[in-house]
């Protein structure tokens, strides 16, 4: 006969996504979620205290030395089982974090009590989507816009066309790296078919590889890139912005890194700060239950058509609900629209 607390604990098994705000360390998020879950678990009624036999003296006068002491046994709840003495029922919930986001970045973060599923997710070759915001004209020592400026340069000569060309070049180099790290001989038929469908993945350890890169917003000095990558760190992405600036004979800093998709977890289903309570989390876990099972079974994650269809429906709803049309929100919707894991070659306009 399981207790209510044990049943609730069982329901907390699984993965879900969280939207990490900028400036917050991921560990703080993990701790907040863990303490919220613990609060809910410990609010369940504790098991009934054990009864202990206690002998109480029924005496006429004082209970010292009188010869007709009558001891009467009675069953009283033992104070040793009182919750103030035993402590809370649950001390720890092993909440883990998927692919980590550093404090400067924001975005979707896969979190959960997975019992090993998180490791599968991180180890498998899931791709992640990022939105990088850059600014021409400055270079800093760690590629972000808040640290010390090292050099300044002009950027009047930069046009969208030149930017696209540079992006195409970077993408080509990454394609070659992808083919190399996938360790498949491209002269075979199967390898060709996989490459056409866009299902080439790096096997084993690989450096960060961008499988997709395009510019979605160009307004000098500001520009925004959308990136789809494997095995990356956020510092690498900021360095990418810097390198784009270098290739264009100017300098650039990164003013924002935002992850819009972390494997199967998209931004629509990610929980914002107000929803990091136990019931919202349990709902989100139930929502992602199928995905979690798939990850656990396969060990290697592949995006399937069924999931993509459901996510497309959600996007339609969002599109109709947004009242104000704004560039940012449009781009947000566009970002999540590519429904296949294909290399985004064909989408980039004006590729030579």
């Amino acid at each position, binding site marked *: 006969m399981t207790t209510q607390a044990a049943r609730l604990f069982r329901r907390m098994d699984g993965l879900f996504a969280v939207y990490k705000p*900028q400036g917050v360390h991921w560990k703080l998020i993990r701790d907040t979620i863990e303490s919220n879950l613990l609060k809910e678990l410990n609010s369940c009624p504790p098991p009934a205290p054990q009864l202990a036999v206690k002998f109480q003296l029924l005496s006429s006068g004082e209970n010292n030395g009188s010869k007709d002491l009558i001891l009467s046994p009675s069953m009283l709840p033992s104070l040793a089982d009182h919750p103030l*003495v035993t402590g809370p029922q649950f001390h720890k919930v092993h909440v883990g974090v998927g692919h980590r986001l550093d404090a400067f970045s924001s975005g979707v973060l896969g979190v959960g009590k997975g019992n090993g599923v998180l490791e599968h997710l991180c180890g498998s070759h899931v791709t992640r989507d990022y939105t990088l915001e850059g600014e021409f004209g400055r270079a800093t020592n760690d590629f972000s816009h808040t640290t010390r400026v090292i050099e300044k340069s002009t950027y009047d000569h930069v046009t969208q066309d030149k930017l696209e060309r540079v992006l195409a070049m970077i993408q080509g180099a990454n394609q070659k790296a992808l083919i190399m790290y996938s360790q498949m001989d491209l002269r075979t038929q199967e390898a060709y078919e996989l490459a056409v469908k866009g299902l080439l993945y790096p096997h084993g350890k690989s450096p960060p590889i961008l499988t997709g890169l395009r510019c979605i917003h160009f307004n000098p000095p500001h520009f925004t890139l959308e990136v789809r990558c494997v095995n990356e760190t956020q510092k690498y992405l900021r360095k990418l912005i810097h390198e784009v600036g270098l290739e264009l004979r100017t300098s650039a800093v990164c003013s924002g890194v935002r992850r819009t998709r972390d494997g199967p977890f998209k931004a629509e289903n990610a929980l914002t700060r107000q929803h990091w309570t136990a019931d919202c989390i349990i709902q989100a876990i139930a929502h992602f239950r199928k995905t979690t099972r798939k990850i656990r079974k396969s060990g290697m994650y592949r995006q399937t058509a069924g999931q993509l269809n459901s996510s497309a429906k959600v996007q339609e709803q969002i599109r109709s609900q947004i009242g104000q049309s704004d560039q940012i929100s449009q781009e947000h919707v566009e970002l999540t629209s590519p429904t296949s894991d294909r290399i985004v070659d064909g989408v980039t306009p004006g590729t030579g």
Partner: protein
Amino acid sequence: MHLCRRCVSVLLSRPLLSAALQPSTHTLHQRSHHILLQHSRVQPPVHSLTQRHSRETWTPCGRRNLTDHQAASPDVYNNKTDLAEREVEKHIVPFENLNVHQISNQESLSDIVVRPSPLQEISEEEAVQIQVPSALPPDSFTLKPYVDKSETLSKLVQLGVNLWELERRPNVGSMLVRLDFHADVAPKLLFLKDLGVEESKLGKLLTKNPFILTESLDNLEARVSYLKAKKFSQQSVAVMVSKAPYLLNFSVERLDNRLGFFQQQLGLSAEKTRNVVTRLPKLLCGSLEPIKENLKVCELEFGFRGNEIQHIVTAVPKVLVANKRKLTQIFDFVHNTMDVPHSLIAKFPQVLNAKFLRIKERHLFLEYLGRAQYQPSQPNYISLDRLVFLPDDMFCSDVALATLEDFERFQKTL
């Protein structure tokens, strides 16, 4: 008849006695073996004669945890562990004097032959006088074995003191177990009740500060009379003690020093200082260095004038003990990014107490909607306290004139 080995008298003895003696773990171990052997041989007399002692005596060999720091007491044990050389000393203590339990020594094998038969009948007086040691472990990791037996601990649990939290603090568990209820604990509890602390708050107070029970009553009374001499009302003293449980553990000089500092540094009148201290009695407990730093930061880094600082501190005393880095971050955002002048911030100091992320997200949302207007002279003015204090749904509907879903969607684009 022979009695058992060591009996644990921790609960019922006075602190000075500390009659529970701790042999080394090694000795414990061997002793327990001997005891088990004894039991297996000699059981009946102790248990059959006196019904009340229905439990087996057991001696675990745990590591010492709660009884590490004992007062030095004469070691009544002789620590000879050789089986053949144990001495016996029958030590019969009348059951009436529960206060003093002596530790009995072991028996020697030679006495077994002389012992009377266990089925021999004895008189009622002798039966009553048999003292059976309680089955309490001499040391343990938790207070659980002692709670049912100890009057102090059971009364504390009934008051609402969180023993589980207290036993995790080093040495607090042993201290609580050694307290005598009628001599130590009860007078202090009555004193606190007389002071005006509510019964429901007593449990939390003692959980935060169990050392109020070891402070002497004279000191406590002296400090309360000092505070009353400084014209704190009875009720405000009670409120201060429940908000800052460690307050009465500080000496009169220290309290005096602190009160003087606040009155002098902040330049407030006595009445206002009293008000500030009553609302945040933590000010009197902590160290003064961080407060001095915060004041300097407000004056030099932020650029507030003296009277503005006074106003901020009287409105939101927490600014004095806030984290310097977080305070700077909030002020930087509000003043430089939101372009709010000093005078407005001084008028609404609650904004310095709010969470930075909240201010940031709400401001960016308003800016995105084009409603970020913080100048009182302009139309569509949004005051800083409404920006910060309203809950999310009210903020969205009243201030931003948008829906909560829009706000959440916007949050996901930041």
